[in-house]
């Protein structure tokens, strides 16, 4: 299954926040474009919770199209004729990078013996890849949602290795509401008897129902009330009146069931547990005595913080919190709020205002850095 993936195997021991040392490390990654002679044109794109490294070309395993095809490619805003674009599957993921579904040193899938990881650990793994590619400083690090958390972690922990940073629809810490939604998802997975205490690979089962429900709940948080109303309203699914039963009477029910069922084919249930946990643990200020500004004082590059007006999952207030801390830290920061009713998912969609901002920001950053 993994033969179509480009995987880097590193025999280093990766020190994790939990205190564990993880080894050996495998990183599934893709690149587009050419690294220039002085290695100054690299753009790292960080993917979201259920994303993967296939930001600019179709995923050969799942057959899914590139997830940011409207932004990354030859002649696009993140122009692969100009930039060397890198995207790697996160640590704990299930698309080539070491995760709970990977085979451990004992020849068995890790399952729950995989160490609990954090956003900082994901960035450590990315930095190992960047080291391997011989790149000292990234021209830009860009990411949405959980990808934005990685962007923030990059500039806090490796300020001299990043020129420009764009955290999109993200937050410097996970809110209680976000932790709550994730907990619902995890409990749904773990309540499925097929989960088998996390050992479903060995037992030959698959917690499809639990993972599917987790996805359904999460999917609601990605959309706004207005977008749901516009797309589905109270319209019925293939029927003229309600059936007085528990089939999917409403289109929205049918849609969520479909989203859930599609998700289980491409995502590992234990990966979902580990990655949502990493997001819940994210609180960037905690490592700086609770002062978020202090996380940014060492960063001398440029930042553009992007949020979407109808995003209630990572609301504009979360982005403003980041921006304000950066102002206090003296960071060159822009803050851009896109007016849209498409909710959190807007960062993946065609949003002309957002794309203009990114184009302007990248052009100015390239000029700054002499690219």
């Amino acid at each position, binding site marked *: 299954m993994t033969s179509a993936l480009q995987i880097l195997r590193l025999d280093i021991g990766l020190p994790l926040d939990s205190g564990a040392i993880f080894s050996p490390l495998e990183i599934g990654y893709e690149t587009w474009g050419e690294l220039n002679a002085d290695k100054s044109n690299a753009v790292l794109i960080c993917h979201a919770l259920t994303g993967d490294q296939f930001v600019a070309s179709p995923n050969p395993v799942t057959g899914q199209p590139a997830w940011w095809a409207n932004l990354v490619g030859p002649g696009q805003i993140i122009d692969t004729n100009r930039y060397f674009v890198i995207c790697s599957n996160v640590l704990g993921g299930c698309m080539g990078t070491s995760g709970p579904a990977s085979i451990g040193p004992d020849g068995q899938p890790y399952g729950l013996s995989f160490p609990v990881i954090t956003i900082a650990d994901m960035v450590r793994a990315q930095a190992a890849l960047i080291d391997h590619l011989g790149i000292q400083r990234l021209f830009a690090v860009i990411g949405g949602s959980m990808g934005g958390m990685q962007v923030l972690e990059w500039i806090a922990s490796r300020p001299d290795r990043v020129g420009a940073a764009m955290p999109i629809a993200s937050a410097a810490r996970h809110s209680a509401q976000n932790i709550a939604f994730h907990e619902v998802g995890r409990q749904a997975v773990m309540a499925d008897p097929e989960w088998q205490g996390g050992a479903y690979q060995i037992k030959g089962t698959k917690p499809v129902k639990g993972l599917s429900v987790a996805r359904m709940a999460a999917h609601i948080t990605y959309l706004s009330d207005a977008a749901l109303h516009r797309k589905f309203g109270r319209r019925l699914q293939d029927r003229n009146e309600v059936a007085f039963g528990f089939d999917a009477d409403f289109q929205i029910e049918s849609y969520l069931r479909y989203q859930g069922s599609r998700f289980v084919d491409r995502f590992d249930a234990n990966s979902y547990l580990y990655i949502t946990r990493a997001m819940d643990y994210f609180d960037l200020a905690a490592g700086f005595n609770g002062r978020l500004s202090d996380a940014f004082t060492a960063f001398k590059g*440029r930042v*553009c913080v992007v949020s979407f007006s109808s995003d209630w999952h990572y609301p504009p207030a979360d982005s*403003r919190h980041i*921006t*304000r801390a950066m*102002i*206090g830290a*003296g960071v*060159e*920061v*822009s*803050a*851009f*709020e*896109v*007016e849209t009713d498409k909710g959190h998912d807007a960062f993946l969609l065609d949003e002309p*205002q957002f794309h*203009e*901002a990114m*184009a*302007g*920001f990248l*052009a*100015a*950053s390239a*000029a700054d850095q002499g690219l």
Partner: protein
Amino acid sequence: MSNAASTRADHEIIINAVPQGARVLDVGCGDGLLLHRLKQERNAVVRGMELSQAGVNACVAKGLSVVQGDADLDLALYPDDSFDIVVLSRTIQATRKPEMVLKQMHRIGAKAVVSLPNFGFWQVRLSLLLNGRMPVTQGLPDSWHETENLHLCTLLDFDDLAKQSGFDLESVTRIAAGKASAPSRATSSLLNWLSEEAVFVLKRAGMTAR
């Protein structure tokens, strides 16, 4: 954008007040016209704050580093001495607490440049005297119930407030009918009569001019 020249007379004066390579914060930067010129013509390190999201978005799309913010509330975020010059162009009269805004500017930057419409301009005085109605002029184009201006003042009033906020006056420049005069070292009753708009260059009291 690069070809769209600003024709605002206050912008010309502000640009002249900014030394090469200075760090400039423009509070109420609109769509970034002034910031863009300062960057181009003064090689200045520019940042902006703007209340309207549309203005912020236009700036960011031009590659300017601008955040959404309210001068009355958000200047407090900036560290002490983080800029050489803080610019407030045609904005102070729309703030809720002009004195607080000036004090924050005093804390953030070594110099402040403030442009404002002058309610002491002879046309304004005459209009009020003859018509008995709130003046509507080129510099104050909106009727009283539509204007965003909360704190209109005269050139002399502002001079007092600036001094009260810890500033020394470096220069004040009169603008009338879109034309700037030579800068003056001090305000005067005559200047108050003749200025439709004025640009104050202020420095922290006790500091020598750079």
